[in-house]
């Protein structure tokens, strides 16, 4: 019988406990950087003691007790005269004494608000996008620096430095550890949702040869999305994003062919879509739509994904509804990429001429100048209109722009079929 590897057990406990631990410590110390250091100290102690003494019955409370003790030592050692720090040190000591009989309750019951504060802090717009992503994975998903480096094809040193800099920025700019309110809430929530969706997309863009840490980012993002949905249950866009991720993730096995080649949505074997994730996605979408009739961008995108999820075969897709949802998206979140997708939906719903009418104004748009899907979409529409010469030129242009070898082969094949047609 193989007994479970203790270091893997400690790692698992860390993944479960560290976000709550750091969140609660940050409230006590009012310093996210210090909170993470204290939590790391507790992890080091666990790595020393648990292999000898076994995993304690309540590992979260154990880690919290050690981290608090280290925190109190830290404030004593610094002999802080600053009133605020003195008070924080006192508060920690008081909590230590109060909470001693039941650390568990202290950790569990009021940690929800702390976690929400931690998410908003890690995703603060004062940080660069990559710093927000890194800090979120480190503080809220319990990933190690090494795991983050592997997932982002980077080095541990780079990630470590990014974390140090991000923590320093939070301290220098005196970012308050709080959940924003009023008009600020929407902007800040937007940043949180953006970070989670970026993590998801990073995982979704992983290819066959990649380290498994990369596709695992999808699950990390889904998990963060589910946690956030529990913490902010009345925010429609939180459920919208969760719905979008669950539905997209439902296709993860169907979207890669046996040779690792990407399979486009309409060509996927829909029998392989994960129905449990689709059900979860549809119910999250329904919740988002119940909370607010006017859909936000994530909810609209989830509604589009849901149209595909509901169609058991590609030819049963409700393209007219998808076209009208893209109209909605183009109004609330206009972008050339949305327009391009809208043109595809219009082409399917109302015929290729209607699609082409939306594509033509996009030609020459600098955002799309290197984007293979622009000539690719245009080529498909021209092909359907039997304008084969133009279609061929566009297929060739798309083949030249794509960085994906199997996609290039497919486009060249289509270009050839224009010749014979």
């Amino acid at each position, binding site marked *: 019988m193989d007994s479970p590897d203790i270091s893997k057990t400690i790692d698992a406990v860390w993944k479960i406990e560290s976000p709550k631990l750091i969140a609660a410590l940050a409230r006590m110390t009012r310093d996210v950087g210090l909170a993470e250091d204290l939590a790391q100290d507790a992890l080091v102690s666990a790595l020393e003691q648990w292999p000898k003494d076994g995993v304690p019955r309540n590992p979260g409370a154990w880690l919290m007790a050690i981290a608090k003790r280290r925190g109190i030592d830290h404030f004593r050692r610094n002999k802080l005269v600053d009133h605020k720090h003195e008070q924080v040190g006192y508060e920690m000591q008081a909590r230590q004494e109060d909470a001693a009989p039941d650390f568990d309750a202290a950790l569990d019951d009021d940690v929800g608000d702390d976690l929400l504060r931690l998410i908003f802090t890690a995703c603060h717009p004062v940080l660069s996008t990559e710093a927000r992503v890194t800090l979120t994975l480190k503080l809220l998903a319990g990933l190690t620096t090494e795991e983050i480096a592997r997932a982002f094809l980077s080095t541990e040193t780079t990630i470590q430095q990014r974390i140090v800099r991000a923590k320093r920025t939070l301290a220098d700019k005196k970012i308050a550890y709080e959940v924003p309110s009023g008009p600020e809430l929407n902007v800040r929530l937007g940043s949180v949702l953006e970070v989670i969706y970026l993590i998801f997309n990073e995982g979704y863009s992983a290819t066959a040869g990649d380290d498994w840490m990369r596709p695992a980012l999808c699950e990390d993002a889904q998990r963060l999305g*589910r946690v956030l949905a529990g913490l902010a249950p009345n925010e429609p866009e939180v459920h919208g994003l969760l719905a979008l991720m669950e539905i997209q993730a439902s296709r993860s096995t169907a979207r890669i062919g046996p040779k690792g080649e990407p399979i486009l949505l309409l060509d996927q074997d829909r*029998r*392989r*879509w994960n129905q449990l994730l689709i059900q979860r996605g549809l119910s999250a979408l329904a919740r988002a739509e119940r909370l607010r009739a006017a859909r936000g961008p994530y909810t609209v995108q989830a509604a589009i994904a849901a149209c595909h999820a509901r169609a058991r075969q590609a030819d049963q897709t409700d393209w007219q509804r998808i076209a009208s949802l893209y109209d909605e998206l183009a109004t609330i979140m206009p972008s050339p990429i949305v327009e391009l997708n809208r043109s595809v939906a219009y082409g399917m719903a109302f015929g290729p001429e209607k699609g082409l009418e939306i594509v033509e104004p996009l030609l020459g748009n600098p955002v799309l100048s290197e984007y293979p899907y622009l000539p690719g979409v245009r080529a498909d529409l021209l092909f359907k209109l039997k304008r084969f010469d133009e279609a061929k030129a566009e297929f060739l242009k798309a083949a030249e722009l794509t960085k994906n070898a199997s996609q290039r082969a497919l486009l060249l094949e289509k270009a050839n079929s224009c010749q014979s047609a």
Partner: protein
Amino acid sequence: MRFMMLVIPKGYETAQPNQAPDAAAVAKMMKYNEDLSKAGVLLSLDGLKPPSAGVRVSFSAGKPKVTDGPFAEAKECVGGYWMIQVKSKEEAIEWAKRAPMGDNEIIEVRQVQEMEDFPADVQAAAAGFEELQGRK
């Protein structure tokens, strides 16, 4: 990766068909269910009626035989399950350890077989399997 945590409650093999669970125990269990949900790991969960309300269909010499519960020979019976999505087997074990179970109760932790784990011929034979899942 997905794991199923199967609950084997003590004495469930002899429980009465309409035995209602104890409200205090249910409240404790709800707290645990919520913890799983709040942590973002819970995918689905269900409870099963006692074996005395069920039947066993056994097969011998090509013939099915139906036996009403409770099943005299059964020492342990499943009472429900949680389906969770976690990072490792160790994490699944950690969650199982936190369940509010009484003495001599059991949680069996089993990883869900993913289609990608199978060789190509098995995958081909199982084409359409995912479609059958989750249909209500």
